[in-house]
């Protein structure tokens, strides 16, 4: 029996994913991280992007937002503000959100607003990336 990892992805709204998997690839702040069982304990920030989960021979892709990942030899806990599997992403809606966010960036924004706009832009870009790559 192969070694496994317990992967938990939690957003403020719900526990999105909680399963035993074999490998996780996540978008760390300093580049992609591939996590196998027995990884050294690691705490990192993650950025909006694509998260890949391998379980058996099936690979699932999720779009995640900014957050934190805590990694130990046996489990990976991810705290993020968004997590959505590629099947649930609506490309048209994401595209629309991206255009809106880009349009908003042209305006003059307060620090607070521009942070929100940047976050929503990053979210929609991550969604689009995941959706387009796993279209087939």
């Amino acid at each position, binding site marked *: 029996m192969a070694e496994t990892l317990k992967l938990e992805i939690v957003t403020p709204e*719900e526990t999105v994913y909680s399963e035993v998997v074999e490998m996780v690839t996540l978008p760390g702040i*300093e580049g992609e991280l591939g996590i196998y069982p027995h990884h050294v304990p*690691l*705490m*990192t920030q993650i950025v909006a992007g694509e998260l890949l989960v391998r379980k058996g021979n099936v690979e699932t892709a999720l779009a995640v937002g900014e957050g*934190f990942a*805590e990694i130990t030899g046996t489990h990976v*806990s991810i705290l993020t503000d968004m997590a959505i599997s590629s099947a649930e992403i609506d490309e048209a809606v994401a595209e629309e959100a991206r255009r809106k966010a880009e349009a908003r960036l042209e305006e003059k924004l307060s620090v607070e607003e521009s942070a929100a706009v940047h976050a929503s832009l990053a979210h929609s870009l991550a969604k689009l990336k995941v959706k387009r790559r796993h279209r087939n």
Partner: protein
Amino acid sequence: MPSTRDIRRRIRSVKSTAQITKAMQMVAASKMRRAQLSALAGRPYATLMNKVLAEVTHHAGDFNHPLMEVRQGDRRAVVLISSDRGLCGGLNSNLMREAGKLDKDKTVFVCAGRKGSQFVARTKRKLAAEFTYKDTPLFAEARAISRFVQEMFRKGEVDHVDVIYTNFINTLTQKPERVPLLPLGEIRAVGAGVEGEDSSSELTKGAVEFLFEPDPANVLGALLPHYLNFQIYQFLLEAKASEHSARMVAMKSATDNAKQIIKDLTLEYNKLRQANITRELLEITTAQMAMGN
């Protein structure tokens, strides 16, 4: 002895009161469902965040963050999370009782919700700031409160920050609680409505050192404020869920009471009406008998 007209008038007024309380009960019930769901949905995130933070601060070595600094003083800021409106049973008075236990001279209040600031003003305590939050609390509102208390703490205006809020247990039970927020010196694995898991303490005992990417200062620098923001957000959600639950229960018992009063009054009214009829009949027959003779 009230006349039948008086009783009729009273029945009418009690009826309209019952209608209002019934409507409020319905509104509170639907809001309650939503508020409860979002409060419960936030708990896994809060639990996990607590666990992560407990482990991380344990393994961060001798790294120190301004928000973790434990100071000797006893000046205290209290974030008092109350409701904006009354008519929700003992919810706010229980909260205020909890707040009243604190030393008047060494405590400043940061209020969220109008009832709290009214209490502070009435009892002549110190009010540092007043925030509002909507029926469905927004993360931005929580962030504003959290920023403010972090600023106070960093500047050294206060040495401790506590939160007083109503913990939502279930529809019938809500418990006012005071929990420490800052300093994050020793993080207790207890947060908004969440008991820390035992497994986390076992893990912390193992002497594994965490790696940090990019480095502890950056990760903790981002994690700690986010933790506080989220914690406050969760407190707001819990408080809202409690408020709507308490209001629903209070309004339900008010409606029940009104119905009971209507029932009693109707009985009395009918008795009186019957007595009147009997009296009139008696008068007529007596008059007839007098005439007949």
